[in-house]
């Protein structure tokens, strides 16, 4: 297949030759590798060769060819943002699209419902291009194995070539993309070429209130798959009605040449390492383990995030272990009962939550596990028990940390089309996407699917969130249905349906609002409410703020159907810059990079400053959130 730049202009082309989404389990060659480095994973992070082009027309056309002379290329650090490497202008903008005031655009298939807009992004003046090259030899131990190339996050549209061959195209900046390298891989001198565009039709779906970056900003890995490999793991722990016992359903999808010749050995141990169950099954493309029953279970909760250890070993026909997949899971039951109150483990749910963007003042959204661990500690220290992953899927380790440390997750899709329906606060959805638009349906469904398949095994997730501030229509209803069809153990969430009461039956299990005044919440709760109430965003902590939290706390005490909320937000978005006058490191925010249009200091709404120190208001959060632990 040949790459086509016109895919950038077409909302119906969003993944080409990408491997299907699957669970985020880690896999190892042996048990001794667990908690260390898997010999099946080889990081391609580091220094890559790089060329920056201001427009698509200026990109180096044949850079992916094996004989391309890249001596004129610069070097760039992967992962990282192209803007923070100094090539492109940093821009912070809230609801408008980043081309506001510069380029007139309407989303394809809106004003003209039957036609694309040729060149809308592929020939655009504002669509900068990063061309990345990475040369590598096949890592030790990768010979004779299927080799997968895995990008954890690339913003915003990416074409990939390998040893001169086009191998695929991906959008969805915050979701892993995987490609099979096996047909083209060589022992030495492999050349990986990645072309990253700042804009595509995905730009319409990624209009989050944040700094707008581009580039390979999360890890890049080579994966070696053993000949029988667990490609997907589906763990379904179910708490019985007595809340004391439970059952566990486990299924896997296997790939590899020797799938039919292997066997799978499953074990479950408790947190102390006591063996609770074992089971063997013959390997097959799909393996469903016999249901395991547990007569006494420890429930998982934020107070006591008790996790069991599942382990599956893949054993080949010679009796040799060729793969080990560990996964920690917990038993917890989420119910929306007839009283229209959400219960977790038979107790009314109270969300003491925050919205969290991934952020570092030094590296933008390219954050480290240390940053994540620090954030977990901050949450625990301040009685924060829930995180909405605003407004995109986070890096995979975050979900594991939340399982382990007892943070409820509202796992949100990478979707916000704010600028297509809200204009300076006024509602004007004439060019809204996805809306009811059939041409925008598959791309948003794919985002729902990726989010679900990747994270479905995480105990901490109790809500799937369809996206943020994207208006509502049949496309978002279809996303809701996707989750309902695949998962009866969690609830769905979406706020934007408040504008479309007719769709309330098909979108969101909760009445979710943002920045709603306490008196309006009372009005809702006292007038035959049909769904439990959540503030998906409240207590806007911009600057010196967070006054009056007591009025929301009173609602928790008074109304069982008021189930708490997520403070906006966890950390200021600001960047360290060397001050041109004093030479000191200072924090700069929107508009400080000469970028226009910008939304300036609106980027700083965190409970923490951008350097991860707490704002004074945090003691108030700790107090009120401590009342309903």
């Amino acid at each position, binding site marked *: 297949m040949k790459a086509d730049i016109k895919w950038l202009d077409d909302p119906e082309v969003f993944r080409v030759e990408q491997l299907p989404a699957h669970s985020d389990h880690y896999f190892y060659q042996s048990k001794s590798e667990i908690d260390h480095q898997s010999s099946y994973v080889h990081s391609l992070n580091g220094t890559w060769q790089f060329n920056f082009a201001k427009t698509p027309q200026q990109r180096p056309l044949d850079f992916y060819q094996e004989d391309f002379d890249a001596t004129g290329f610069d070097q760039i650090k992967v992962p990282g943002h192209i803007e923070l490497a100094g090539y492109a202008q940093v821009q912070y903008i809230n609801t408008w699209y980043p081309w506001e005031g510069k380029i007139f655009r309407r989303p394809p298939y809106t004003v003209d419902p039957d036609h694309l807009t040729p060149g809308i992004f592929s020939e655009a003046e504002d669509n900068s291009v990063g061309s990345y090259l990475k040369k590598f030899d096949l890592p030790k131990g990768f010979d004779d194995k299927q080799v997968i190339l895995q990008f954890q996050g690339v913003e915003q549209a990416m074409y990939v070539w390998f040893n001169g061959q086009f191998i695929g195209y991906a959008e969805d900046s915050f979701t892993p993309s995987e490609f099979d390298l096996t047909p083209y891989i060589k022992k030495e001198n492999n050349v990986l070429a990645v072309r990253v565009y700042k804009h595509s039709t995905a730009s319409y779906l990624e209009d989050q209130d944040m700094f707008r970056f581009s580039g390979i900003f999360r890890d890049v890995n080579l994966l070696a798959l053993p000949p029988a490999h667990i490609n997907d793991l589906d763990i379904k722990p179910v708490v019985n009605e007595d809340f004391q016992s439970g059952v566990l359903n486990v299924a896997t999808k296997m790939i590899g040449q020797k799938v039919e010749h292997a066997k799978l050995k499953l074990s479950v141990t408790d947190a102390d390492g006591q063996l609770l169950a074992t089971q063997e099954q013959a390997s097959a493309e799909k393996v469903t383990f016999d249901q395991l029953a547990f007569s006494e279970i420890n429930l998982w909760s934020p107070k006591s995030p008790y996790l069991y250890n599942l382990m599956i070993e893949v054993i080949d026909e010679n009796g040799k272990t060729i793969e080990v997949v560990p996964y920690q899971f917990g038993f917890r039951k989420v119910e929306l009962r007839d009283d229209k109150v959400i219960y977790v483990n038979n107790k009314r749910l109270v969300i003491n939550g925050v919205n969290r963007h991934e952020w570092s003042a030094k590296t933008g959204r390219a954050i480290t596990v240390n940053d994540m661990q620090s954030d977990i500690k901050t949450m625990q220290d301040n009685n924060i028990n829930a995180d909405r992953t605003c407004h995109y899927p986070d890096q995979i380790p975050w979900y594991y940390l939340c399982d382990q440390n007892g943070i409820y997750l509202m796992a949100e899709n990478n979707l916000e089309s704010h600028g297509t329906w809200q204009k300076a606060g006024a509602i004007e959805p004439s060019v809204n996407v996805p809306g009811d638009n059939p041409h925008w349906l598959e791309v948003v469904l794919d985002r729902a699917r990726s989010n679900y398949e990747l994270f479905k095994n995480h105990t901490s997730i109790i809500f799937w969130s369809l996206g943020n501030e994207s208006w509502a229509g049949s496309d978002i209803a279809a996303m809701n249905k996707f989750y309902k069809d695949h998962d009866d153990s969690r609830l769905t969430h979406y706020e934007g349906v408040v504008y479309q009461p007719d769709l309330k039956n098909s979108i969101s299990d909760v009445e979710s609002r943002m*920045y709603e005044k306490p008196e309006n919440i009372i009005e809702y709760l006292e007038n035959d409410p049909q769904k439990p109430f959540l503030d998906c965003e409240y207590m806007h902590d911009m*600057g*010196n*703020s967070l*006054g009056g*939290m007591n009025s929301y706390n009173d609602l928790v005490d008074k109304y069982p159907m008021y189930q708490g909320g997520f403070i906006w937000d966890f950390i*200021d978005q600001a960047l360290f810059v060397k001050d041109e006058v004093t030479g000191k490191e200072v924090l700069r925010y929107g508009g400080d990079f000469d970028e226009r249009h910008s939304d300036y200091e609106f980027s*700083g709404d965190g409970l923490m400053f951008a350097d991860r120190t707490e704002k004074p208001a945090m003691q108030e959060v700790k107090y*009120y959130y401590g009342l309903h632990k």
Partner: protein
Amino acid sequence: MAYTNNKLNVVFSDGTLGLGGEDFHYIFSYERGGLESMLIQGKEWLYRTPTPTFWRATTDNDRGSGFVVKSAQWLAADMFSTCEKIELTVDNEKFDQLPIAPYNNQYNGNETAETVAIKYTYKTNTIPSTTVDVTYTVTADGKINIHQRFQGNQDLPELPALGLRLVIPTTAKSFDYEGLSGETYPDRMAGATRGTYHVEGLPVTPYIVPQECGMHMDNSKLTITRTTTQNNADNNPQPFSLSIKKADKNFNFSALPYTPEELENATHQEELPPARRTVLTIFGAVRGVGGIDSWGTDVESKYHISAKKDIDFEFNIEINK
């Protein structure tokens, strides 16, 4: 001059009134309209005369809700209110006119008193105008009771703040207070812990846009400690302190290196000037910070400061022995 009778030594000068004791000397200015000097144990504590303060550096929420547009005239009042009347009472005897020449020619320089009260009346340049009385009552032990009365007016917009601002010539090394932990406001103080706290320096909370910060609600005592003065003949590096104590009720304060106007003018922390002074403000009324949103919703009404009603508050400055 010896102070043997535990009385205030009263200096009826032509432009000022001096009040002295064993380890203090205060100068109340008639021409500058306020307390000009507070010399305690040889150290000067005032840079300029204290003035009523009506403004706080705009918070993001105050900007977003439009509050500052409605209440903007208090910024002018904060900067430009003038003293238009001074009343002096010595040992309960109220002077009909200020005791300047030739009235004071009767004195010999040995005058003393138990208690001296001097009331400055400030007139705001708001429309309509109102007045603020600041009354200093000094007793022989050097204690100054400061009482402030804001005259309410039905036609005035809500106040961003109401207090008395004392600008101290150099920055504090630290301050200690008995009150609530952290930065607190009337609508954000439930999470604070009551205790005794030591704060190094004069921290400005580093909100990305400098704004009102550093408020401490509900204190019984504050001690500010400095090590520097502007007195060229003073080379003593030993720390020295001033204490504020509650009078009838606990008081609110902030101790920052900047005036609200200096904070207001900066769009980034690094634009703030080098710290040179201590801006100590004792607040009789503090507006909440709000938090419902930052683009239209006002602070909850019970945390507003109405300008329609009179506002009274007082506190004491005491000499640390």
